[in-house]
């Protein structure tokens, strides 16, 4: 189906031009900048809902497509489109677009216009990443997104912000240039930049392996996978709350999305041949990083490590499909794995975003992120405590919350592949519960630890609105994941069909 007006372009360019307009209001009219940013983010979110309502769930084809020549000499097109994988992620992006504006409302006092603009521009670019169907366009959005994040961490971040932000930038940049070489290679071979055409383009196994590694370099850094995850804890710890939220809730998902859009369909045989690599790295992330999270002293760091561990589930769910095909007759478990990975991404978006906001609430009051500085927060901030406990429970995968659904689906799929995969993956339920609940015990419950905690004030209406909305989202996905799964079902089926057919035999290369 085609839309009558270019909704995807609007979702991309409205926040970007809106962001430029917010910069233009100048530094000294902070109140106006905030209101404008809220209005732009709000309108973008409301418009994005039409994606959900008008989306045809029965087909895996790209919808709301747009197609215009961009750089004709090299066959590059401005071509957009969404399927069941991108719509949920776009909605997540626009949703958080509103939340980070509200979250930074009072906290940010210097250069408010630039702060708000950076987030709006970033939002537009991220929507661009999720909706580009031309590889060059995808790459441009993928890289351009680094700039606002670089500035956000560096300008409003903590004491070691410069180190963290340069590390963040260079890590991701280095990863993605290898992908760029792969993309150019694919273009030279196929004469097109269309990702969908690449899906059908036959490649030999050895070429696929190189391409796969190129994609892996880009997306494994982005998601991030062990052992290239080290930029993430630094970036999270130093970023301002809004930066951490966007980083955890959306940017990491771009790595997972990249696997779905590029690695699996373009190089399916290489993915099948190298799935052991991804599965191993994922399991290491799930188990080892889970232990690392356990010993953290800094709340943000703990959540950052927990993010890496949860992202391990995403990569596991995506690549377990090949093992499922091998070990079972019908391969029904494979769909569970991929859908679980997608649900996990959305859920982790809500949960980790909420957790960083919770830490932000505490940090704004006491200017410390150290677990040891807190204790008995529940006594002085009961409302906050209730919400925070819910989010930490969701983080550890409590049934009824969104965290449970994705993890459970992936573990079920893993069982069909190999008992030990499932066993190791399931350890996360214990570890996740351990580090989450232990943090809750030390920070939220117990006696009031010190004078500072005794003077804490409970969350105000603004914070309650942000956290409350997220709590609803977490419970909604947890109790009723049906609409979300339906949204992506057709696309998942199609992807799984596609990756089962060897590509190198198609043309007999």
């Amino acid at each position: 189906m085609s839309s009558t007006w270019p909704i995807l372009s609007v979702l991309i360019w409205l926040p970007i031009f809106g962001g430029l307009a917010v910069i233009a209001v100048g530094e000294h009219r902070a109140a106006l900048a905030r209101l404008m940013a809220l209005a732009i983010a709000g309108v973008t979110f409301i418009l994005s809902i039409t994606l959900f309502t008008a989306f045809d769930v029965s087909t895996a084809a790209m919808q709301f497509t747009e197609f215009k020549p961009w750089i004709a000499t090299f066959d590059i097109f401005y071509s957009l489109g969404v399927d069941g994988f991108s719509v949920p992620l776009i909605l997540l992006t626009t949703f958080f677009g509103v939340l980070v504006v509200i979250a930074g409302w009072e906290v940010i006092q210097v250069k408010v216009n630039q702060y708000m603009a950076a987030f709006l521009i970033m939002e537009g670019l991220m929507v661009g990443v999720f909706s580009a169907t031309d590889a060059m366009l995808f790459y441009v959005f993928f890289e351009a997104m680094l700039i606002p994040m670089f500035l956000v961490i560096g300008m409003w971040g903590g004491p070691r912000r410069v180190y963290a932000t340069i590390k963040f930038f260079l890590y991701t940049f280095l990863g993605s240039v290898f992908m760029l070489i792969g993309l150019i290679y694919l273009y030279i071979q196929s004469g097109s930049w269309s990702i969908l055409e690449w899906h059908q383009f036959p490649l030999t196994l050895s070429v696929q392996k190189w391409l796969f590694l190129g994609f892996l370099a880009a997306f494994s850094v982005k998601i991030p996978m062990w052992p290239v995850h080290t930029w993430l804890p630094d970036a999270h710890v130093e970023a301002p709350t809004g930066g951490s939220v966007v980083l955890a809730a959306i940017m990491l998902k771009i790595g997972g999305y990249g696997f779905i859009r590029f690695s699996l369909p373009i190089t399916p045989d290489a993915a099948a041949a190298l799935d052991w690599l991804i599965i191993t790295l994922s399991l290491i992330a799930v188990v080892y990083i889970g232990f690392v999270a356990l010993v953290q002293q800094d709340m943000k760091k703990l959540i950052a490590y927990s993010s890496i561990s949860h992202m391990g589930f995403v990569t596991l769910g995506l690549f377990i499909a090949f093992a499922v095909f091998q070990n079972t007759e019908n391969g029904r478990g494979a769909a569970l794995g991929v859908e679980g990975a997608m649900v996990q991404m959305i859920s982790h978006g809500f949960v980790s975003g909420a957790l960083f906001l919770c830490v932000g609430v505490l940090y704004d009051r006491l200017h410390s992120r150290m677990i040891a500085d807190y204790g008995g927060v529940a006594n002085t901030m009961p409302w906050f405590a209730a919400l925070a406990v819910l989010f930490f429970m969701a983080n550890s995968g409590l049934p009824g919350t969104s965290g449970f659904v994705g993890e459970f689906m992936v573990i079920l799929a893993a069982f069909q592949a190999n008992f030990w995969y499932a066993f190791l993956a399931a350890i996360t339920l214990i570890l996740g519960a351990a580090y989450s609940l232990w943090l809750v015990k030390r920070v939220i419950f117990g006696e009031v630890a010190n004078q500072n905690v005794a003077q804490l004030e409970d969350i105000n209406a603004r914070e309650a609105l942000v956290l409350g909305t997220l709590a609803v989202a977490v419970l909604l996905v947890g109790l009723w994941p049906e609409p979300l799964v339906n949204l992506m079902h057709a696309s998942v089926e199609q992807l799984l069909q596609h990756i089962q057919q060897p590509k190198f035999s198609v043309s007999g290369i």
Partner: protein
Amino acid sequence: MNNANMMLAAPEFWVLAMACVILIVDLFLDEERRGIIHLLAMLTLVFAAIMTLRSNYVSEGVHSAVAFNGSFIRDPMGDVLKLFSFLVLGIVYIYAKFFLRQFRMFRADFYTLSLFALLGVMLLISANSLVMVYLGLELISLSSYALVAFDRDSRIGSEAAMKYFVLGSMASGMLLYGMSMIYGATGTMDLYQVSTAVKSVGSDDPLLVFGLVFLVAGLAFKLGVVPFHMWIPDVYHGAPVATTLFISSVPKMAAFAMAFRLLQTGLGEMQGDWSQMLSILAVLSIILGNVVAIAQTNIKRMLAYSTISHMGFVLLGLLPGTASGYGAGMFYVIVYSLMSAAGFGMVMLLSARGVEADKLDDFKGLNQRNSWYAAVMAMVMFSMAGVPVFVGFFAKWMVIKAALDAGLMWLAIVAVVFSVVGAFYYLRVVKLMYFDEPLTESEIDAPVDFRAAISLNGIMMIGLGIFSSSLIAVCMASFGA
């Protein structure tokens, strides 16, 4: 016939005439009215551009025309490069007027010397014989030596000029030596005839190979690629910023054209030989330029090393010897000139009376002093680093594609890895501007034409990036790719 020759070279004659006119007019002007010189120079550029655009030598199936017994050639590549030379020199003049006034160096000599250099650039771009190449090159070089020493009382300026002169003469000597060998082997100066003669002599003729080596060495010096780069940092550092800006931008376009004319038009048969030489030069330049730039604290030196690495990328476009490679190299060199203009323009903007703002620390906290100028500089830096959607990315992307097209995977990998290394020092400038506190709160003030030019120059970084398709198409079409 004579008339046709004149018509083809009309822009060159016009620039020559105007350079002389400015020289004479200046005698009758006092200090206050020297602005007229600036206007005359701008006028020269505008009319030169119009003449270049209007002269119609292209007819059905014919894309180039030669004049003066084949030693002068007009073709689309030459025209595009000339037009961009005029544009960039116009930007240079706008920046330089403000800068030279601040430093009490606003004399007509800057304009006459740079117009003579421009004439050299135009001749070199249009050179189709060995003699013409040498003539154009020397005209650029001699004017540049004088421009570097433009600040008579500056010790490092004089030192830089001296170094430039000595090394430059040596390079010219090498080039001349190489040319004489090629003449010896082929018996002709005309590049078209050289190319046919090479076919009959055979490309493995020792005399030719020797000649090629010297030619490439001379060329490498003019482009400033490793290991013939030693003069670049000192000259960039020692010269007044206005001169640095000039020598880092316009002559590079001429050097690109010279490389194309000599290597492709003349010695295209020997592509296998020179492509290997160029690939070594390219790799070394990209590595050394990007790594050493990290250690610099002076922004002029940093940009000098960055130039070295950029020229390595240009070579990457040249060395496959394909039409799309040349197109990519040409796009790169044009984009580089514009980026370099904006970068040095910012240095001039920050230079307060009598003190050049050439330390990296002078950029500290620029965002707090003026967020628009900080944004301009940030765009230049991101563009130089090759981050999309800025135009520098498309330039890098195209040369890397050209290298991959030719199957040079390892070169492409070296290039991208070291462009990540390079990103570090560009990011450091952004870091200084955005994350650090300013050292001074003084107002940044500049005349309105300067502000307009630098703003436009900055917007080009992103504008040419998003709307890169027409410039890319023009560059590619110049080589029929």
